[in-house]
């Protein structure tokens, strides 16, 4: 049982990444590789700031701001420099590596003995793992709520339109370059925020902790979509968090089945690939019928 609670807690903390990536991957409709650099960037920023005596909450917010700056860089390279988004993301991601080493001064900085968001009387009084469940739920409710509110504003609608149909958006006077830059900034800010949370939960930041992050974030988005079918935009954002939790369950089961952690990356990729190919299967195999029989008892 404790393991499941732990998995839920981890799923909630890592869900920030899914929501962040959702803004670019699903709404702006491109894959932003910057996240592999901004995740450790957020972790490094928060850990370095906390080590220098900053309040953990401020340090986490600072991580958001620094992540947003990295997003700004990618956005400028992409929109003003006309560098393809994939390449722009990889450039900033690579650059982040050096920046992270500079920020931390070494490859791995520990937070043992330092105060973090997780070290307060209330969270310590909870049963084991419920600290990350509680903080994760709080963070996800606030972030999902803010993102949902934003998407329903005039500006948010313009942002969605930019990803949906750029030609139309421009013809309606929406500055699509600014929208893309804004999206990249918020997205990377959230990912860095997630990095700061995970680092405080793990107790350290490591310069290599960004490897494979994009797969974890994608997994939350795609598992959420596959598991819950047709949803409105707002529900899809909630589904990302649940997808992140389900992904942790899958990892837990894989480990329980006796697979070595060596195989985890391969298994994650296979699961993700299968989920993404589902529409193809549906066409060729009438998969929907089988899937419904398996999952939906209401029919």
């Amino acid at each position, binding site marked *: 049982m404790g393991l499941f609670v732990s998995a839920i807690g981890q799923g909630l903390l890592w869900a920030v990444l899914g929501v962040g990536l959702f803004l670019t991957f699903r709404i702006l409709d491109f894959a932003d590789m910057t996240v592999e650099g901004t995740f450790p960037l957020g972790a490094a920023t928060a850990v370095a700031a906390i080590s220098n005596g900053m309040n953990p909450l401020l340090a986490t917010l600072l991580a958001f701001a620094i992540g947003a700056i990295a997003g700004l860089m990618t956005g400028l390279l992409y929109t003003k420099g006309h560098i393809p988004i994939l390449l722009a993301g990889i450039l900033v991601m690579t650059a982040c590596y050096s920046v992270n080493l500079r920020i931390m001064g070494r490859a791995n900085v520990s937070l043992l003995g330092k105060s973090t968001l997780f070290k307060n009387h209330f969270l310590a009084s909870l049963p084991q793992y419920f600290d990350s469940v509680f903080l994760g739920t709080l963070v996800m409710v606030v972030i999902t709520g803010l993102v949902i509110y934003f998407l329903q504003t005039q500006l948010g609608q313009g942002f969605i339109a930019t990803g949906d149909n750029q030609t139309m958006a421009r013809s309606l006077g929406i500055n699509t370059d600014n929208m893309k830059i804004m999206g990249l900034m918020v997205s990377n800010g959230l990912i860095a925020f997630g990095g700061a949370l995970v680092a405080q939960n*793990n107790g350290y930041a490591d310069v*290599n902790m960004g490897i494979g992050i994009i797969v974890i974030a994608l997994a939350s988005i795609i598992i959420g979509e596959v598991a819950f079918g047709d949803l409105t935009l707002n529900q899809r954002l909630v589904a990302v968090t649940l997808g992140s939790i389900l992904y942790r369950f899958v990892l837990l089961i894989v480990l329980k089945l006796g697979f070595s952690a060596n195989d985890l990356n391969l298994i994650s990729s296979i699961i993700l690939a299968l989920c993404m190919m589902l529409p193809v299967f549906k066409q060729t195999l009438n998969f929907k019928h089988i899937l419904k029989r398996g999952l*939906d008892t209401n029919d």
Partner: protein
Amino acid sequence: MKRLYGLIAILIVFLGFAFVQESHQEAATTKKVPTVGILQLLSHPALDAIHKGIVHGLAEEGYHVGKNVKIDFQNAENDQSNLKTMSARFVNEDADAMIGIATPAAQALANASSTTPIVLGAITDPKGAHLVKSNTHPGNNVTGVSDQAPLASQLKLIQKIMPNMKTLGIIYTSSDDSATAQYHQFAALCKREHVRLKAYSIANTNDLNQVSQQMVSQVDAVYVPTDNTVASAMQTLVATATAKKVPVFPAVDTMVKAGGLATLSINQYKLGVTTGKMTAAILKGKKPADTPIHFVRKGEMTINLKTAKKLGITLPASVVKEAKQHGEVYR
């Protein structure tokens, strides 16, 4: 949509149930066979050797796997989120002792529990990694064995073989925390011993060729700390250095085999045996807080005569004798 709300409801019910359960179930159940959780950062010959040594060390102290001790071995394959999940697993199964092999693994364990005894296997600088308050008197639930190379003996060896050396170069990977830590200690040591040291750092193996080219033209000898990245590209480094007749003194014996000149190094397997013995002592009731971190002061001499011949260096007879008797000689 129904499924979405359904899952949320199930999760809330489960968490509520778990919350009540966990709050009321504080007393741990008693077990007959003690459990030791071993968390290894990644598969690597040196780390694997430590793992084997631990099992041997436990056995020497009377703890035989499968008989009177249960070992839960987890390898995180360098994935940070795995470390977290696996540490949680150990705490959850109420392990009697946890062993972390390599620094991030140890940090994950230390973060998962502040009560379960933790033994460090192969952590270069436990104090620098904030794992213990002091290396001589840890003061918390953490103690262990340091894989820190006997730097002072190694520097002495270099001076013995290269009496006319003016400048010593050191090359290390900046993203490798333990290599960087060793660089800082080695630099401090050189300052005390009045040896001129020039430092060169790389970010990954791709940089090695260019950086080493530049280095060998500016120094008389090269020192390599325990650095997995440099170790994996040792051939490149040796080729450039040999071309300029500059000897390479690595911290680890495997790098001598790959073309380094000589070293006084720690045997990783013996390191594991010591870790295993220390764990056994803790299982028998010794407190980690009062157990000082074990440092290896003296290394085993390893020399490479083939390299010496290529460089045109004659190794002192005492060094060769020491290697033949207690260490290893590569020809």
